[in-house]
């Protein structure tokens, strides 16, 4: 059993696709780190106070009408603005005067950034799961392995396990590397204000839930490709299901969103009950629901694999 698992892990790691994905991830993370560093800058507290005051003055001038506001570099006829003192005028001026010019990188935004990376990592996990079993079918290596270990459930579940482990490790490493790549910006061009113990815990929560979702995505991609015996089929079915069915159902039937995989994934990643406007779904229930979907599909794939002929 250990030998089987070790072998499957090595086979997944030897895949060319995984190397390409790793290269792409490293390149993307490096670019993100460098661009963030270039687009942020250090601001002293005196400068910050001065900029805050300047922003307040601009807003006040706009509201009083002493300074004709500009939008996109073009002056606007003060006659056509909402009357001074009105709520509309305040709203407009907040927008027209611009906020405080603060080009620092705030470490606390890392949480949101990591949440944003979950979606691409889920796609990567799906791809890893689907392509591993898909190419096993295509190259008929599944036959070869079965002539060494005929217990089919064992073989399939070990393969799924290898995909889940590799996809999860990939996601965790990518997110850790992204965090590292952003640290120079945070320490040299920014602020770590607010990045306290509680914050760190919430970031760890994001990582944990994101990795869980990635693991489930790998298992689901694997199961679908195993049943369809084809990588492309799994990708096509995934694409059609999420973009067409879930999207359409989700946008027309708001109440139904908590029963969609996408809705539950949104709640899980957000870490908030009813997060992302998925009404009536708590984080633990979303986690359970998604786990059940993953395990259920894997169980179906195993049953199908045990019954059907292998070429």
């Amino acid at each position, binding site marked *: 059993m250990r*030998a*089987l698992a*070790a*072998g499957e892990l*090595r*086979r997944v790691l*030897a*895949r*060319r696709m995984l190397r390409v994905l790793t290269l792409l991830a490293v390149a993307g993370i490096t670019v993100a780190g460098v661009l963030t560093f270039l687009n942020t800058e250090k601001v002293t507290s005196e400068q910050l106070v001065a900029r805050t005051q300047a922003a307040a003055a601009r807003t006040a001038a706009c509201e009083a009408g002493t300074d004709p506001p500009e939008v996109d570099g073009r002056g606007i006829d003060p006659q056509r603005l909402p009357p001074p003192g009105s709520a509309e005028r305040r709203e407009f001026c907040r927008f027209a005067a611009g906020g405080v010019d603060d080009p620092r990188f705030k470490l606390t935004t890392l949480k949101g950034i990591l949440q944003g990376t979950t979606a691409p990592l889920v796609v990567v996990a799906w791809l890893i799961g689907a392509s591993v079993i898909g190419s096993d079918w295509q*190259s*008929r*290596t*599944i*036959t*070869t*392995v*079965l*002539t*060494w*270990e*005929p*217990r089919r459930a064992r073989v399939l579940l070990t393969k799924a396990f290898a995909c889940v482990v590799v996809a999860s490790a990939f996601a965790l490493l990518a997110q850790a590397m992204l965090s590292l790549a952003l640290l120079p910006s945070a320490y040299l061009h920014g602020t770590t204000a607010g990045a306290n113990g509680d914050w760190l815990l919430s970031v760890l929560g994001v990582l944990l839930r994101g990795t869980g979702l990635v693991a489930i995505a790998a298992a689901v991609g694997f199961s679908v490709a195993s049943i369809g015996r084809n990588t492309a089929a799994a990708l096509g079915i995934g694409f059609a299901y999420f973009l067409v069915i879930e999207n359409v159902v989700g946008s027309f039937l708001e109440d139904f969103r908590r029963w969609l995989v996408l809705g539950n994934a949104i709640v899980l990643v957000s870490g908030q009950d009813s997060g992302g406007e998925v009404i009536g779904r708590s984080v633990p229930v979303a986690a359970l629901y998604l786990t059940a979907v993953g395990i259920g599909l894997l169980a179906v794939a195993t049953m199908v694999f045990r*019954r*059907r*002929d*292998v*070429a």
Partner: protein
Amino acid sequence: MAVIELTGLRKEYQRFRRPPIVALDGLDLSVPDGGVFGFLGPNGSGKTTTIRCLLALARPTAGDCRVLGVDSQTALPEVIGRIGSMVETPGLFPAMTGRRNLALLGRIQGIGPAAVAAVLERVGLAERADDPVRNYSLGMRQRLGIAIALLKDPQLLVLDEPANGLDPAGIKEVRELLRGLGAEGRTVFVSSHLLSEVQQTCDRVAVLARGKCVAAGPVDDVLAAGGSHGLVVRLGDLQAGRAALAEAGIESLLEADHLRVALPPAEAERVTRALVHKGLYLTELRPEEVSLEAVFLELTGEHHGEAQ
């Protein structure tokens, strides 16, 4: 004890809105322990299907399939360590080297790198063992497949057309390899549609046609059962020879440049005597050659090797 025992094996492949394909139609087969057993049949006769049922890769529709004394559908894990196999073209991991392919499989059964190196040597792949399989030629892949089958040092080898894609030297090597394995006391079950291969390699043979076994036994017996026995007689004046034989009460057939006489070789003397009696002298007298080809066509009742 029979190493492989098939009784009434039936396998249907379902088709959408059409009657199923009957690949095996009540196949009975018994392969004794030791030696090389040829499994002969034309394309589509069900050789690969039989092997897949044997290795529990396919689920038989009906019938019994026993390997090394156990039911292969339920208890194959108990004996799989003693069965080396290759089904059709070997399924290999293209991103890995030949050696790595073998090593990862071997580890499942606790087989180490020394054995891997030994089989690579045995199939003549030692030199290219550390290239990725993606870059292998067809014949090299086939050799690696044979290496995978040999790696377990198995008591029973099940090989599906192992000579596929090999060059003449490779075919000869495989032939010698199989004979060697058989002589070591192992059982080699090898499928083929190449009659000459079976004739040169195997001790026993079973002939498959349309999912049924039409003949089985020692190669010589199967040959004897099928071929029409006779003598080829060649002489200057065929017509005169024919008349002389008829006078001696021997039926003969006039062919393009010789006569065919339906007598067993042991009675060739009668032919010579009859002809010499009339002053006719032979230029050639020999037993008619019986090729497995002829037997095969006769047994399978096919004339272009096409099933259905």
